[in-house]
């Protein structure tokens, strides 16, 4: 298996605040990596670096065969790789971030039409197929505001899939949802994983993490403290802080 993401001694600062510390992590194609850690540990920042929504200051990051430029280069205009990377990397956000002024189907077709120059008919056919896949074909012509949170998040997943990504990033996809809607989103993600999609997921759903992950990454205060198979990690964490974290979150 070839690697799709490769981080080497990656560092990120907000001013003098050291947010990510010497991150070394590689993700293989077809792999599902779940990143867990306490709030503010840097896990969201970590996956937001992968598609360049956050800039990093030093180290190296290779995504989908392209080197992600460091902050200095990006500010000087070296962003050509960024566009290529983003075409191949999809992302799902905690707040869904659907475009409220566009219908569900327009939300899904706009990027394929603008970025891949697909015809409207072709893009709509793909959109309807994807909506069928996430169980929302009947809602194709509604506006996001008319849908529930769980439905909106499934549309957001379909929107990302429409770009035929090689890698999907999930940034706490169920954290803004009412409890009864979490299941429907996780189901879609399970199916994606089963279909062999490469995924990096930040989540607080430990049961789900254990079930779908190929590897768990535990991050605390901006540093990766432990990487392991889910069973080994959850049953017998090696790192002391990981043990304390699991004791806290698995208690309820």
């Amino acid at each position, binding site marked *: 298996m070839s690697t799709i993401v490769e981080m080497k001694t990656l560092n990120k600062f907000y001013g003098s605040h050291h947010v990510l510390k010497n991150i070394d992590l590689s993700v293989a194609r077809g792999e599902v990596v779940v990143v867990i850690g306490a709030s503010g540990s840097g896990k969201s920042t970590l996956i937001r670096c992968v598609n360049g*929504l956050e800039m990093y200051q030093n180290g190296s990051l290779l995504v989908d065969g392209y080197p992600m430029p460091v902050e200095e280069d990006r500010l000087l205009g070296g962003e050509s790789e960024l*566009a290529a990377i983003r075409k191949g990397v999809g992302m799902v956000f905690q707040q869904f971030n659907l475009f409220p002024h566009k219908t569900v189907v327009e939300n899904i077709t*706009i990027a394929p039409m603008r970025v891949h120059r697909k015809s409207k008919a072709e893009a709509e056919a793909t959109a309807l197929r994807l909506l069928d896949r996430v169980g929302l074909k009947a809602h194709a012509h509604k506006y996001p505001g008319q849908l529930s949170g769980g439905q909106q998040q499934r549309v957001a997943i379909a929107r990302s899939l429409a770009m035929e990504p090689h890698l999907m990033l999930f940034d706490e996809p169920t954290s803004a949802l009412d409890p009864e809607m979490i299941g429907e989103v996780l189901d879609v993600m399970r199916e994606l994983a089963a279909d062999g999609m490469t995924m990096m997921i930040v989540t607080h759903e430990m049961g789900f993490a254990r079930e779908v992950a190929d590897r768990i990454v535990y991050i605390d205060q901006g540093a990766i403290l432990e990487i392991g198979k889910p069973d080994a990690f959850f049953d017998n964490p090696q790192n002391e802080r990981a043990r304390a974290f699991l004791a806290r979150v698995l208690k309820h």
Partner: protein
Amino acid sequence: MIARSLKWSRHNLFAKPFDVLLSLTVIPGVLWLIWQIAGWALTVAQWDIIPQSLRVLMIGIFPVDQAWRTWVAAMIIAALLGAALGCVFAFRGRHAGGLLLVVAVALVLTGTKGLANILCVAALVALFGLSWALISRVPAARRGLVPASFVGLIAIFAVMAPPGAGLWGGLLLSILLTLVTAVVTLPIGILLAFGRRSRFSSVRWICTAYIEVMRSVPLIMVVYWIWILMPVLTPQLNLADVVRGMIGFTLFYSAYVAEYVRSGLQAVPRGQTEAARSLGMSEFDINRSIVLPQALRVVVPPLVGNVLDIFNTAPLVFIIGLTDFLRAGQMILANPQYGDRTYEVYSFLFLTYFLVGSLITFVARKLEKHLARGSR
């Protein structure tokens, strides 16, 4: 009915001792005022001056034999306004009835002015209604609205220019000035607003400086400066006063539009841009298709309010020698023969300004409701 109005007045006029006192002083006062004004308007006032000088009030000193040009311009304006209205209000049968009523009123008012004028007024109203109906019934036609309004403005200039732009005047000048300023400031304001948020600090600085300078000086000064400077900067162009006035207004109000648009841009959540970026969309596409439509939706009501501002400050062009609506009224009064009709003329000016202004605020309020419904 009587019981209900009694109850209403008890609740609203005579609920507490202070209310009673207030009602007993204010209501008779207002009634007395209305009585006085109505008495003057119906018995003393000599309204014949209004129809006699209606042409000057409407088009200033534009040559009589060229008046058809102003009718064409008015028809283009009517079509554009109808189309703009159609974007917000669905056209219904009862609206057609209302328009017929307008024609009927116009018939009565202009009944003595000849068949040609009546036909022209009817055509104006018909064009307004037709483009209103077309735009509200055929949503696809909305796409052509922005280019159409630019073509319309150019057409107005083309048809009005031959007798000389120096002859433009009256209400038509006020409306043209407002229309040109409103339409042209929008794209400029949008560009300035984006420029003020640009990642290139040179662009950011230039746009910020422009906006802040324009916002900290009076409109009259900008108009006056442009009027003086244009002939010096471009002596070969020999721009008419009207055009220089429009340039001054446009430069000034662009800064205000930019600030309104910027407040709209700031209201669009960061997540929208991030989602679009993560889909690989270019910054241009993101701004045009994701950020700008959401931003404009927020600021349409203040932008319509801005149009009202432009219309109400239009009389200031008298400072560069133009004859707008207000100035046309004063011109009539300058004629010694009409020296005793001051109140009649100013009442007419007041009513017309009030009608146009309240129409614009009415549209703005409806627009606000319409947009609030759409965003849910």
